[in-house]
């Protein structure tokens, strides 16, 4: 099926997520959609799959005919099926029920016939899926396979895959690629959304690159990696004057640390962080950096190895013990995990201080709040509830809540969604901390931010942790390839 997108716009409030996108995808091809987080890829694909509607004026044309897609059900009706990044399936139910759910038909589905179709499709693509197994016992890769055969069964002729290679094993990935090529060979249109260069280069017949909501260009094989990287991140940035770290004492050491969660395993990671140093953690969302930073905070207990803080073994201690020892963690979800909606700025500053007696002295709290609001340049009054602050001001408030003195700050996406002014201000404040020998570990999906502000960088790729790279000697291009899983062997000392 030929897919044509004409003049697609989408606004979310003040955010212009898609800016007049025109794209034409011929039948039987694999189209790559490349771009960093927040470039507008997902929005575009959600529009095509009926999850959201584009602003009026745009058009979706299938095989020459304009179509109107109101809902995902409409989309599958006209032959568009989407595989979401977080599988939208039903974990406690059986694979066959997941497969069947949503198919229209009589009240009593013929399970035997459906199971036959299931097995036939699974066999056709060499998937070893058991229709009777429960979905929560399947791997992410198998859940994808289930979703692919389901969409095909429902008659999808355009298949959209949103970041499908996140969280699946290498062998599942190669099987997925074989399948997608086979489908394209059968005349299917495959749209492959990713920010992994390696995957896109390996698979796609054509690549469209999105940046900040705009389609900045298209490319065909043979691909030049550096050119793709340049399109993704804008012109190659010449780094400003970086401030190298002073050599301090070791604040935090991870020795042979192993971590596990439902999706990922990190094996035997080592790291030594010195006072005043900034470590950037790079990697695609869900590659293990979140687990890693939580382990550094004591929020996740390692299944092996030791965590040493200022010379003391802290393995297995709680976050509160880490906090008393001078570690603070600022999570990415500011209003979900960082601040308390419904409480004012003053309340927050009082909470962050050690209680002084039984009763709160509101006057002192008020003074404290005024002082911090001034020194952190927060646009808000002491009585302002935190949820009515802007994102940048919430982040400033979080910084203002940090203990003093502090040996280590852990930050998750400290500047995500913030305006430039706030970004510069926040890093200024953080660097101030570093000069008083606080160490910083932060996660960011902005590679320029990582290279600009870190001394050393750790790259994460599906649970693998790179050796620390010297940020001064690494380029955005190199980093972009590493987070996409490329060139790990060339790093020489990289380990599993």
């Amino acid at each position: 099926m030929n897919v044509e997108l004409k003049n697609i716009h989408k606004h979310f409030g003040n955010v212009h997520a898609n800016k007049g996108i025109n794209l034409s995808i011929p039948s039987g091809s694999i189209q790559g959609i490349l771009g960093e987080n927040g470039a507008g890829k997902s929005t575009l694909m959600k529009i095509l799959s009926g999850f959201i509607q584009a602003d009026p004026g745009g058009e979706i044309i299938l095989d020459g005919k304009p179509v109107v897609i109101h809902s995902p059900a409409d989309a599958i009706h006209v032959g568009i099926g989407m595989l979401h990044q977080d599988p939208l399936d039903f974990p406690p139910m059986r694979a066959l029920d997941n497969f069947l759910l949503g198919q229209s038909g009589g009240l009593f589905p013929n399970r035997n016939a459906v199971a036959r179709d299931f097995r036939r499709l699974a066999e056709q693509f060499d998937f070893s899926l058991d229709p009777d197994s429960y979905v929560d016992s399947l791997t992410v890769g198998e859940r994808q396979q289930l979703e692919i055969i389901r969409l095909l069964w429902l008659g999808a002729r355009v298949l959209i895959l949103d970041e499908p290679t996140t969280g699946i094993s290498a062998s599942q990935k190669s099987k997925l690629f074989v399948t997608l090529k086979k489908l394209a060979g059968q005349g299917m249109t495959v749209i492959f959304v990713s920010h992994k260069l390696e995957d896109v280069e390996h698979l796609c017949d054509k690549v469209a690159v999105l940046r900040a909501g705009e389609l900045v260009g298209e490319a065909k094989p043979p691909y030049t990696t550096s050119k793709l990287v340049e399109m993704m991140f804008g012109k190659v940035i010449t780094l400003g004057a970086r401030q190298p770290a002073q050599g301090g004492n070791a604040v935090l050491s991870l020795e042979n640390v192993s971590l596990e969660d439902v999706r990922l395993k990190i094996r035997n990671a080592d790291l030594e962080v010195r006072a005043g140093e900034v470590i950037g953690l790079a990697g695609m969302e869900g590659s293990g950096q979140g687990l890693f930073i939580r382990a550094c905070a004591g929020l996740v207990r390692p299944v092996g190895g030791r965590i040493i803080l200022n010379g003391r073994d802290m393995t297995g201690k709680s976050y509160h013990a880490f906090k008393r020892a001078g570690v603070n963690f600022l999570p990415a979800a500011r209003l979900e995990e960082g601040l308390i909606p419904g409480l004012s700025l003053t309340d927050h500053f009082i909470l962050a201080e050690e209680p002084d007696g039984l009763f709160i002295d509101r006057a002192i709290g008020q003074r404290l709040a005024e002082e911090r609001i001034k020194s952190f340049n927060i646009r808000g009054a002491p009585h302002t509830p935190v949820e009515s602050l802007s994102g940048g001001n919430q982040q400033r408030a979080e910084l203002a809540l940090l203990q003093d003195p502090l040996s280590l700050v852990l930050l998750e996406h400290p500047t995500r969604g913030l305006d430039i002014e706030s970004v510069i201000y926040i890093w200024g404040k953080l660097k101030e901390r570093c000069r008083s020998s606080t160490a910083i570990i932060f996660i960011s999906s902005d590679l320029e931010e990582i290279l600009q502000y870190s001394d050393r960088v750790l790259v994460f790729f599906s649970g693998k942790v790179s050796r620390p790279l010297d940020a001064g000697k690494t380029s955005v291009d190199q980093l972009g390839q590493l987070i996409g899983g490329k060139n790990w062997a060339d790093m020489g000392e990289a380990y599993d």
Partner: protein
Amino acid sequence: MIRDRLGNLLYQLAALLLSFGVVSLILISVDASPWEAFRNMFAGSFGSLRKFAEVLVAFVPLLLVTAGLLVTFSAGLWNIGVEGQVVLGAIATTWVYRFFLDSNLPPALIIALAILGGMIGGALWGSLAGLLKVFGGVNEIFGGLGLNFVATALTIYLIFGPWKRPGVASMSGTVPFPDEFSLPLVENLRISPWALGIALVGIVIVYFLLQGTYFGLRLKAVGKNFRAAYLLGIPTWQYSMYSFLICGALAGAAGAMQVAAVYHRLIPSISSGYGYLGLLVAMLINYQALWAVPVALFFAALNIGSIQLPILMKLDSSLSGVLQGVLVLFVLLASGMQQKFARRS
């Protein structure tokens, strides 16, 4: 800000009028005059000193329970188990009384010990729901409900079993305690100024606890955002447990009052549903301690005033419960409407 307040007030007023309207319709449907019914209820609660004293008798446990619930609601917990905590307070009080039945201690000390025992009993029962919630992941609503039934069964077991009256056990409860075990009552009335004092002290303590102390602020933080409160360094699960203990103690005090000042023995329905009614009061005042006293007094007056209805108008006294429930329901719906319109505009 001021417009918000005004809007709020308008919606609340509308809810109040609507609920009286609905109850009037219900009354008309059974051929009763709404005006007469409301007038009789008013007269039945404020018409004489004796009647007003009865209102205060109901007000005491209701206020104590509401005070306790304000603490658990602040911590984001739906302590439906409060009913059982009242019962266990009453049981523990009875147990202390029975223990000292033949002792030579001064009665005042025994009363104090019995009330203290009631508070401890309620707190322990509350901590059970808390432990289930904090360490077992059992929702406090279901854990609490289950414990309520167990508490009621325990009362009946005690009344018909180990603590039964000599001769034949009956639903009228255990043997009444001697007069000196009663909290001193106002002459010719059933209200004890001591009980009233304890209830008022309870709500004042809770008010200051929630408004002015570090404890209260941290409790609110835990209730509004458990995760963020933990990251800010607040020992979250401990605070959840504290709130169950405090609420349990206040509910236990309510149970103790029922035994020490009202019934002077353990009866099967010792809690009189004040636990559940307290939940309604707490919801109606939108969890603000300042309003607890007038609203609890209003609800107690409705309860007592409605006692006159069967005698004067051949209407069932449960009208008070209908009015209370409809009022809370409309206030909930009104605030939902208000939020919906706010979202849309």
